[in-house]
């Protein structure tokens, strides 16, 4: 046990850990938002509701079909992603030529409806979801105690985030995506089915939110409100990172989680507002965001 700036080291490290955990969710969620915004030009306000749906699908799978956490990690993103595909085909595809505001309003309305439906059937109090057996307990690192499940969340989040970054920046599929983000008309005139790519992109972004929801289920309670609470911060993260920037979403997601955690140690009163203060400063200095390609 030692002290840093007069703060006991284990208090510091445990807040750092909480910061990294929150950062993992910020990164996963803002990554999905960035991917969707880049390709569809839609600010997906139902992202929080889709994250919540992921957690509920995990809960329902366990309750009614006995499929455990590991199954939920795969099944929930696919199911929720499919609802995203449906939303894109039925609703969003008509909005691309309109102002951003329409997409924002539509997805915001969808979020309210989805959250309302879940509140109606499951109440607002929250349902428990157990940490899977294999990830119970923790490891003593000497300077702090690291719960295994939390380590797992950070690990998977990093893998998924950098996997997504790799696919978009370094593969053929990714170069098609980047090109279609820049000039969809021309990419389509080369013979690439851009509308299908857009649908799948939305489905993928939504699946990322659902994956985050499954991972969040054992940490936070499964409740209809869980997404709404988180998404406001995530939007601030996206604005700081720069709308549509993949690496920006990942780095600022983790970074701001850590900043928030550290603020809790050094100046707890500001921990709820620090991200928004940073957002205001970034908007003043670099309106396109830290990683945005200013337009």
């Amino acid at each position, binding site marked *: 046990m030692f002290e840093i700036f007069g703060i006991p080291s284990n208090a510091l490290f445990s807040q750092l850990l909480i910061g990294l955990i929150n950062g993992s969710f910020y990164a996963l969620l803002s990554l999905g938002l960035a991917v969707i915004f880049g390709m569809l030009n839609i600010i997906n306000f139902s992202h929080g509701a889709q994250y919540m749906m992921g957690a509920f699908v995990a809960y329902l799978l366990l309750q009614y079909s006995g499929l455990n956490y590991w199954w939920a990690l795969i099944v929930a993103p696919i199911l929720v992603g499919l609802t995203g595909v449906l939303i894109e085909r039925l609703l969003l595809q008509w909005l691309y030529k309109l102002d951003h505001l329409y997409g924002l309003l539509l997805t915001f309305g969808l979020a309210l409806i989805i959250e309302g439906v879940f509140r109606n059937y499951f109440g607002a109090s929250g349902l428990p979801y157990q940490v899977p057996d294999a990830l119970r307990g923790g490891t003593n690192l000497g300077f702090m105690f690291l719960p295994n499940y939390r380590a797992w969340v950070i690990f998977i989040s990093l893998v998924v985030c950098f996997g997504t970054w790799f696919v978009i920046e370094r593969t053929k599929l990714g170069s*098609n995506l*980047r090109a279609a983000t820049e000039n969809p*008309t*021309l990419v*389509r*005139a*080369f*013979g690439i*089915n851009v509308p299908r790519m857009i649908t799948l992109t939305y489905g993928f972004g939504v699946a990322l939110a659902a994956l985050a929801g499954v991972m969040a289920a054992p940490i936070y309670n499964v409740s209809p409100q869980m997404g709404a609470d988180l998404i406001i911060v995530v939007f601030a993260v996206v604005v700081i990172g720069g709308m549509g920037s993949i690496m920006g979403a990942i780095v600022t997601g983790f970074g701001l989680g850590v900043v928030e955690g550290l603020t809790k140690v050094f100046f707890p009163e500001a921990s709820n507002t620090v991200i928004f203060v940073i957002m205001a400063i970034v908007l003043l200095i670099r309106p396109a965001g830290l990683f945005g390609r200013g337009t």
Partner: protein
Amino acid sequence: MSEPMLKVEQLEAWYGESHVLHGVGLEIAEGEVVTLLGRNGAGKTTTLKSIMGIVGRRAGSVTFEGKETITRTSDAIARAGIALCPEERGIFASLDVEENLLLPPQVRPGGLSVEQIFELFPNLRERLHSQGTKLSGGEQQMLAIGRILRTGARLLLLDEPTEGLAPVIIQQIGKTIRMLKTRGFTILLVEQNFRFAQTVADRYYVMEHGRIIDHMANADIEANVGKLHEYLGV
């Protein structure tokens, strides 16, 4: 004359409310290089875009290899074997040169290999990992032409490939078009510069106000120089 490769009849096109093409008709036989001449705003670019299916609204008839394409989407038209090199070149800033080159999918067998494209445009090989838009104007044009040669498309729509380029690069592009012709590509070229077009084209259509107003063979061009100057306002 056998059935033309591309036959455009009574083609109308609109951008929003403005009616841009008024009954355009033209034909291109397989292996021909045909040039659309005309002033700025005459409807040349819109004609190419209409053939490719990327204008707001179009009507009339565009048959390619005997099949009607007027109701098809642009990706289906591309897969039928038509490729466009747009006027603004359309090089993607977020892709490097190699990614730009490999972006258009192969729609048919028989395209040039990447190696053959590098032989045509050796500069591209040296700049392979540069960002697409960091290239010079001439290199960007080479990239824009090069990437559609890979796809196996048999009809190439080239929109002002010489615009704003240095004479030495214009010569290189002229050489490329003549080489493509010997390899059996069919080309519809939009140009303002008929002195350049003369070095590559078999026939000409002249456009004004969204209509075809004249038509001539390359052999007749010297006899018609006066008329062409008047058409093009040069």
